[in-house]
């Protein structure tokens, strides 16, 4: 890594880290995990700055990276909590979630298939338009519309009103 590339990542951190942290904290529900996601995202960019290639803007890249990092962490938390419960070390109501509404959304994200979970974050939480989501995913708006329909179907079948449109 050249010093120029490192300086470039530092610039991106200065202008965009606040939004990465904001989204991570909302998605994960606690500051400690959000701090670790923030660090992971930018260390990954330091290691491989060419990850930015192919994204329309730095923000679309960071939305994608942050969403993937948070969803992975949510799934790991879910698996860890399940293992602890199976071993009798953690009662089910002890999951570390704050507001009831956010908790429902996070639980739904843990259960959604990976691709749908990513789109659900952009559409239901970030409130992005179909076009903005298409730019992040690198697909057509029609595909985004289809994915949102699948999320809504899933939400209805699983009785998750917050994802049922």
């Amino acid at each position, binding site marked *: 890594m050249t010093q120029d590339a490192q300086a470039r*990542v*530092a610039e991106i951190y200065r202008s965009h880290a*606040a939004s990465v942290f904001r989204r991570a904290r909302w998605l994960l529900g606690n500051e400690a995990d959000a701090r670790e996601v923030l660090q992971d995202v930018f260390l990954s960019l330091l290691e491989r700055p060419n990850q930015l290639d192919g994204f329309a803007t730095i923000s679309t890249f960071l939305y994608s990276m942050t969403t993937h990092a948070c969803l992975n962490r949510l799934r790991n938390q879910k698996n860890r909590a399940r293992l602890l419960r199976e071993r009798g070390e953690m009662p089910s109501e002890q999951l570390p979630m704050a507001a009831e509404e956010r908790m429902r959304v996070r639980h739904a994200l843990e259960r959604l298939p990976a691709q749908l979970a990513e789109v659900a974050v952009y559409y239901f939480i970030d409130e992005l338009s179909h076009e903005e989501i298409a730019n992040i995913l690198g697909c057509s708006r029609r595909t985004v519309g289809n994915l949102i329909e699948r999320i809504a179907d899933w939400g209805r079948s699983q009785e998750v009103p917050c994802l049922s449109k």
Partner: protein
Amino acid sequence: MSLQMMRERTDDCISDLRFDQCLGGELDDAEQAQVRDHLAFCRRCRERQTLLADERTRFERSDMSDPEWLRGSGLQRRPAFSRRMLGLSSLLAAACLLLALQLRRPEDMLRTKGDPFISFYVKRGEQVLRGSSQEVLQPGDRLRFAYTAASAQYLAILSIDGAAQASIYYPAGAQAERVEPGTDVLLPSSVELDATLGEEKIVAVFCAEPFEVEPLRAALAELPARPGCSTYTLQVHKQ
């Protein structure tokens, strides 16, 4: 990002991504104008903008705004914040690298490398924030400027507001003020923004030789190129 706000949202509303792109300097002039036009009549988006700005301010005041791991020269993953311990050599390396990097804001990327430039701080009520180009400001905000220059210069800072009115922000006297080489050096005075709304351009003129400021102010709308001088322009929005 509250579900209540989502229910109030219309198709024309500004998404968080759009706000983030705006703050990150990723929108062109036409896209920025769209954002401003929408904010002018949409209460929901103004409230969202305020929330995001508050969150950004809290972040910038936290220890996360300038983390040591970003300044470190080693790129290997380190333990998380709470478990991290850096040795003296790492701290020294990080401190050296900080000097080398001098983290820049988006507007700084537009200038020619090595040219002098200005930045500013905004005092609103009891809060003091670092400002950046494309900042949304309010009448009554106080601006205090800082400059970065590799050599001694004569400096004047002028402004042309939304009513095409040109003003001199610095210095108070008729002649441009000599400033010594330095990084992010605060100027001694501040200015209070008046009630004129709209886009405002703030132009810093750096010259190797002394110059009269008033003729520049009079011709600010068509600022002529001056030999031995460079200009640096910030744009802010007063609303």
